[in-house]
């Protein structure tokens, strides 16, 4: 049996036009590709530092 009060908690206010700008600015756009590139660049820099230290 559906509980009205519990179901009502699942509904949230919809985004109004005035709030759209804030929503766009505050959206976290970091994706998997960003994380991967960071990891690759970070590992490349680490390797370069290691080589410099060996020399």
């Amino acid at each position: 049996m559906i509980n009205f009060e519990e179901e009502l908690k699942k509904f949230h206010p919809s985004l109004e036009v005035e709030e759209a700008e804030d929503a766009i600015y505050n959206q976290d756009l970091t994706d998997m590709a960003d994380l991967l590139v960071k990891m690759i660049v970070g590992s490349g820099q680490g390797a370069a530092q290691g080589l410099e230290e060996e020399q």
Partner: protein
Amino acid sequence: MYCYNCGRRLAKPDFCTSCGADVGLYKKVLHVSNMYYNEGLEKAGVRDLTGAVVSLRQSLKFNKNNLQARNLLGLVYFEMGEVVTALSEWVISKNIQPEKNIADEYIEKVRSNSARLDSVNQTIKKYNHSLSLCKQGSKDLAVIQLKKVLSLNPRFIRAHQLLALLYMDKGDWERAERELRKCMEIDKNNLQTLRYLREVELLLAPEEAEKPPARRKKEEAIRYQSENELIIRPVNVKEPKRSGISTLVNLGIGLIIGVVAACYLAVPAAQSKVRNEDQQVITKISNESDAKTARIQELEDQITGLQGDIEGLRGQIEGFVGTDGTLESIERILETAASYLETGDVFAAESELAAISQSVDMSAMTAGYERLHQAVFNAIRPDLAAAYFERGSNYFRIGEYGEAIVALLPAVEYNPEEVEALYMLGEAYRMNGDEENAVAVYDKVMELFPGTWRANSARQSKGQLTGIW
């Protein structure tokens, strides 16, 4: 697909042919993003909008620059009635690629129609308001608001779901089902809609709930949309044939029921309305009447006060003005003066002037009147003093000292320079046995006329009375 390091287009190998960067994993990530996009596209094609949103969001988590996925996500949101969220996705898309982007067209279409945009905003505000009304417990108001929302934006799934939930809470299962069916037409695989629908179907027809709803619908009725109305036409149901007489009888019964219902429901209501209106009019008139009565009473009081003032003024005027319109008292003064000049009867003139003074309020008279009265009196004053002195002398000579005092007092008053009159007054007091006043008059003679022979006489007379010389 471009190299993350140098931005060159990537070829088949897992490294960039331009800068040599390892792009194997990067390519796989982008492929996963495309895979999710394809999945989302397929789901959107079969109106599984919720599923499409999930897939497209996944796609964007892998590659935020997947503009096709982002634009499609915006479209899906728009279809679900979430216009602002759709616009947000399209704006981000346009920001990533300002040129040759279909999102630009979508944004322009929404923006170009300002009335539509305003309507969308109003819809969202009303939805949020109805949600807060629900939380406050004003469910009936929330239902009204949601109906308005759906008349403006019939594709707003969340509004349909909330309205269905409210109907379910009220036990209006049929309306709830209708709303949920509308949700299903827009988004076929919305988990919340499916959950509510199952609940509604269980309560509407528990034995038939297990059967697939689409099949049952096909068997029982044909449903189609005509503008905003959902028409449900039953299949295999035939109207029973009726004879003409039974139709007429039914019509008659219906007519009678209608008339009775009108008499018992509509007419009393109309009468009550008319009575209420009449009562309001009566109350209004009564209030106005009370206000006017109070005003009349106030004016009557004013009239009474003014009548009193008029009477007072009339008395004053009558005091001033005679019946022929002349100023009576002035006339009397003038007549007194004329009589005096003609007859020389100074006592008559004096008594007449005294009578005039008593008949009017001298302080209220004009300055001219006072001057006239005083001038006439000043004119007769010397003769009056002389006449009183003569009368007093006569009484003194015949030994009527009391009468002599009465006559000499005004003689002294009207002519204080007459030493004989003053001295004779002292003598009259002495002869009348009033030694105290006699001494006072003698002192006055000595004070006012020092060095005169009457002053010496007064001193001697006083010495005789008091023994002090």
